[in-house]
């Protein structure tokens, strides 16, 4: 079953066409990585899917609810109750964590479940402790974000997103602000989510990780999807642009 469906999405900033006719679909439990060089539009795509940017045309459907559609060249976003429902079904993990510095770890995680989803504090905290335990952060519940390492911060932000029980979790370069050691720590956590059957869309520069974890990989270049296929096929692609991009990556590795 399709959890996310995107059709003919277009987005420009002023006169710069950042996304040119993007279509893709993600089914339940699937893990999809989006790769591509900086400026290829992959982060903008993720931001459009999370309504941090408004699209110029196209259609986005999340778990059966239409977020936005286009009729006669007019973009129409859904009514706010629908948008709110979609919000609850999606989670986003940022590159820079964006934790709330004035709340401790526990409150960072429970604030939205209590005040947005309307869950009781007791229930929200029980769920938060469960998540912290799963992510190896039990002893950090009372800590404040400034007391955490980058890896711990990112794990807290993953817990914060998971606390709302999303149907699909988006990651926007979750390890780009981390050193290699901390990167491993965060990737381990993302891997562990795979066993929970979590649907994930991951924008990343970690090629080996993407190859290992993904069911499908999407390669974007200059605002279009060049390839959308299995990791194996992508890494053996005959496409010139794919080869050029992965070639750069191989040069770095070797």
């Amino acid at each position, binding site marked *: 079953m399709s959890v996310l469906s995107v059709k003919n999405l277009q987005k420009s900033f002023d006169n710069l066409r950042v996304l040119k006719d993007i279509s893709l679909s993600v089914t339940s439990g699937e893990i999809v990585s989006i790769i591509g060089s900086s400026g290829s539009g992959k982060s903008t795509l993720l931001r459009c899917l999370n309504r941090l940017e408004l699209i110029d045309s196209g259609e986005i459907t999340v778990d059966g609810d239409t977020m936005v559609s286009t009729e006669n060249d007019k973009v129409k976003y859904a009514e706010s109750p629908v948008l709110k429902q979609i919000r609850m079904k999606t989670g*986003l993990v940022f590159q820079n964590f964006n*934790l*709330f510095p*004035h709340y401790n770890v526990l409150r960072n995680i429970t604030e939205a479940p209590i*005040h947005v989803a309307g869950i009781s504090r007791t229930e929200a905290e029980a769920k938060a402790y469960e998540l912290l335990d799963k992510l190896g952060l039990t002893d950090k519940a009372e800590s404040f*974000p400034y007391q955490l390492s980058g890896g711990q911060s990112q794990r807290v932000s993953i817990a*914060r997103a998971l606390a709302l029980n999303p149907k699909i979790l988006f990651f926007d370069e979750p390890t780009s602000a981390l050193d290699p050691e901390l990167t491993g720590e965060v990737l381990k956590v993302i891997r562990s989510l795979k066993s929970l059957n979590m649907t994930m869309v991951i924008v990343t520069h970690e090629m080996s990780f993407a190859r290992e974890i993904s069911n499908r990989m999407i390669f974007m270049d200059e605002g279009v999807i060049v390839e959308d296929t299995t990791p194996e096929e992508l890494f053996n692609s005959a496409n010139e642009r794919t080869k050029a991009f992965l070639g750069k990556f191989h040069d770095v590795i070797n």
Partner: protein
Amino acid sequence: MSPEAILKLLQYMITASAMVGKIFFLTLLFSLPLGLLACFGRMSKWAIIREPVKLYLLIMRGTPLILQLFFFFYFPYYVIGTTLPRFHAAILTCSINYAAYFAEIYRGGIESMPKGQYEAAKVLGFNKSQTFIKIILPQVIKRILPPMGNEFMTLVKDTALVSVIGVAELYQLATDTMSQSASTMPLVMAGAFYLAMNIIVSKGFEFAEKKMSYYR
């Protein structure tokens, strides 16, 4: 001055300080919320709101408070045929004057917040007022404490200006006594009173900053 006269003046000064306190607290009571309102107006995307607010901020910050005091005391006479009670005119003027400074301090604090905080709140489903009250405002308060401390201390001293429209307070008392007794002692004493009040204000801010230092 004789010791008896000084003791007597000391008592008067304590009473006069109460007036300073009254102006101080009433001005804050009105100017702190009014400043927030002006700050939102200043940040409005609609020019019809933003531009008049900018003009208000410019005039209030660009002209002397002493002149504004005279203006708000005498101007109502030409409109409603009577002046405002002196004390009310003083509170009105100080409030709208300080609100202008507070508005810009609030704006500085709000605009210094990283975009990521808004985006994280949005993605988690917080609405606009929840985001402002739960996420942005607490962090803004911590950031603006030092400049607010400046303003609060300046306000204590600026209360001396209301004497120009005949509101009796500490400065008035000091200068009157000085000319009667031909001694600078009253000035020194008044200075000590202002300083003592500002020591309390600055300690208050120190305490608040310490309170807010549980996070970075």
